[in-house]
């Protein structure tokens, strides 16, 4: 739902009224730009079919949906499922966990690709740059299962290399996998490990478009490397950063179900259960269709509100929003 930004209309300002009616004008204008509209069609269809029509299914979050009765035949229960969600003893915990993971994503993960891209950009010699780039991209192509499994092997208390090293240097073993305090650091480190390199692509593209003349001029004025980065590179990619930031917010509660689910266990559930994993357990495994739809609905509404908020903010600061 959060992607449901309607394609902006191409309508230019109306010319001063003439003899013809507005309708006729419109028709003429449509006809003149017919190929543009035809090209627009697949996109519009995509959004209608895959984004708007499925919203019909949201009805079941207000029903006691039984598959064999269908949407028409199921009993209407109003807000019962939302009531259940908000009064669920674990609701606050799940919401809190979701928000904290999201905040980690936003404040710890988000700047990493920018810094990494700046560093890559400063590298001399194309060979090293390419080599290094390839290395940092690679983890993106591994699935979460592999990332989490590699982590398990490295940090397990039963012979994992990290714990062995800790013991070797005279420290206590640390229970990375089961200790709730370690869940969030592990989560965000894995996100950085897998995604940071990939995240640099767009920034690097933005940096490549900067006019080299600017740097030259800055050097003439005696600006050092850091000055150049601060006064030229960063301002030049500011638009990119803000756009990506808004898009990231749009995915506010999409924290990667697979990733969290793989890290989740009985010992860290207090901090690791998030909306997505809860929907999976309650909805898909237990078959509570209406209830899980209600949760999903709730999640989308939050996402929508946040996107609108941030968009507004960004316009206030004179940047372009996503709509």
């Amino acid at each position, binding site marked *: 739902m959060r992607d449901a930004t309607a394609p902006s209309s191409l309508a230019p300002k109306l010319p001063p009224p003439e003899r013809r009616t507005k309708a006729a004008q419109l028709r003429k204008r449509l006809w003149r730009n017919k190929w543009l509209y035809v090209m627009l069609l697949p996109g519009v269809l995509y959004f209608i079919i895959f984004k708007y029509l499925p919203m019909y299914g949201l009805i079941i979050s207000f029903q006691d949906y*039984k*598959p*064999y009765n*269908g949407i028409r035949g199921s009993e209407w229960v109003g807000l019962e499922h939302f009531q259940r969600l908000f009064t669920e*003893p674990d609701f606050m915990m799940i919401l809190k966990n979701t928000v904290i993971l999201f905040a980690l994503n936003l404040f710890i993960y988000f700047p990493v690709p920018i810094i990494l891209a700046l560093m890559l950009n400063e590298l001399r010699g194309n060979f090293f740059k390419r080599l290094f780039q390839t290395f940092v991209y690679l983890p993106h192509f591994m699935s979460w299962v592999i990332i989490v499994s590699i982590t*398990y092997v490295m940090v*397990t*208390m*039963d*012979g994992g290399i990290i714990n062995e090293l800790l013991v070797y240097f005279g420290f206590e*073993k640390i*229970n990375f*996998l*089961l200790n709730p305090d370690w869940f969030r650091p592990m989560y965000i480190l894995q996100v950085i490990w897998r995604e940071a390199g990939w995240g640099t692509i767009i920034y690097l593209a933005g940096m490549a478009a900067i006019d080299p003349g600017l740097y030259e001029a800055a050097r003439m004025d005696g600006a050092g490397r850091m000055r150049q980065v601060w006064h030229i590179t960063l301002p030049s990619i500011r638009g990119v950063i803000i756009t990506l930031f808004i898009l990231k917010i749009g995915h506010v509660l999409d924290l990667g179900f697979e990733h969290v689910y793989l890290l989740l*266990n*009985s*010992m860290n*559930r207090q901090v690791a259960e998030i909306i997505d994993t809860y929907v999976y*357990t*309650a909805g*898909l*495994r*237990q*078959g*509570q*269709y209406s209830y899980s739809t209600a949760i999903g609905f709730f999640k989308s509404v939050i996402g929508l509100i946040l996107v609108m908020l941030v968009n507004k903010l960004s316009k206030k600061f004179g940047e372009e929003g996503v709509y």
Partner: protein
Amino acid sequence: MKKQSFILILTALLALSVVLAGCGSANNKKGGNSAAAEPAATTADNGANPTAEAEKPTEITIMLPLNTSETPPDTIKAELEKLTNTKLNYQFFPADTYEEKLNTAFATGSLPQVTYLKNQTTFIQMKEAIKDGQFWEIGPYLSEFPNLNKLKPEILNNTKVEGKLYSLYIGRPLARQGIIYRKDWADKLGLSAPANVDELFEMAKAFTEQDPDGNGQKDTIGIADRNELVYGAFKTVSAWFGTPNNWGEKDGQLLPEFMFPQYIDTMDFFKKLRDNGYINQDFAATSKTDAVNMFTSGKAGLYIGGSMQDIDSLNKDLIKNVPDAVLDTHSMVAGPDGKFAQWMIPGYNNIILFPKSAVKDEAELKKILAFFDKMMTPEVANLMYWGIEGTHYTVVEGKAKAADNKELIEREVKPFKDSVIGEPETNGMYESYNTLPGRIHAEELIKENVKVGVPDPTAALDSQTYAEKGVELQQLITDATYQYIYGQIDKAGFEKAIEQWKSRGGSKIIEEYNAAR
């Protein structure tokens, strides 16, 4: 869409009348018993038009969980179609996410004619829909099929819903669980198989502390366990301690197992094991693969789990790493009171349902049942369970000996193996011919286990609340159990979790089960 399905029905009806007409000229070469069943199905149409043609193969679509990594080639399916005169459309879905697939297919009304569930839990979740009449009741037809009629009544009873039978079951030995352990280590340290839980503890201790692999380093552990209470070590050991099987009776009332003191004793046992380092420290986060690896790499000495029959595969991988390792099985471990007990499954590990949305009428249902009736002949059952004789297995002393090419069997046969209904006693397929002494021992123990078996008293009972919230609620207890073992909560904390379980619906479950008795 509408038109299409109409045409489909028409074709089905047409095909049916041809079959019914052809029925008189008994054209069944193999499995003559099914021919005996079919005339019963023909009452009205019989003799209407005697234009007998060759019987057209029945088309059946089947959805089932896949326990291997890829869908099998058509080797077995082609043979199967020939033997049963069917055209089969097998839809395999990975077992890991099967619930999801099942629920989505159900929600969209696209379950196929033959729907395999995944396990007991999925069955319980479907009960509401079954009661609502979404699936065919097959009880009344069973007597028409001589082979299906052989299915064990006590197990069929466990799968009934409100006293009516809707499903066929895939049989499993009642109690396969036990210990697989390093006999060479035990011999070296002068230990015999543990006769009671204290000796089991001592064995885990000795395997950890006394350097059983003789490399001069303290780098072994006693038990390799994983993040699974039921099919890992916990439930099996809890039964030895005398904990009831899921539910037990106390003062005339049915109560869940975790309200019994023996459950606490079992948790204490595991807590002690973990505190002392006799079990892998991270077992609450260890996957089955990792636990198995720990054992097969020669690091751990005891593997307690859902099936002692796993010894074959464990042995295969272990001797690659430790060539002179010797494994054995054991299950007779007495509790603190000196008594033996083993938990038992209700005799099936999965069931099959026939959705009314896909099976349009009685005649179609009977044709599908006829297919399963043939599946219960030795010829077909062997094909599906063991594969093709000479390729996948050979017969030795009246038993089937699996071929050495395990990968081939895994790829071509295993997916079908898990879908055979009944068990060797009822469908007449070969028992397995074993060469590994530990496996032969396991088979004996499986028979012994049943003699002291504890059934689940709620197996045939019904609880609406359990069907709705059972999985979610069980999670509370599972979490609390691990937290207790890891020392994060104490007994009071565990009691609190039980109170939570009760207040969130557990009390209702207790009520409903007791009322259903």
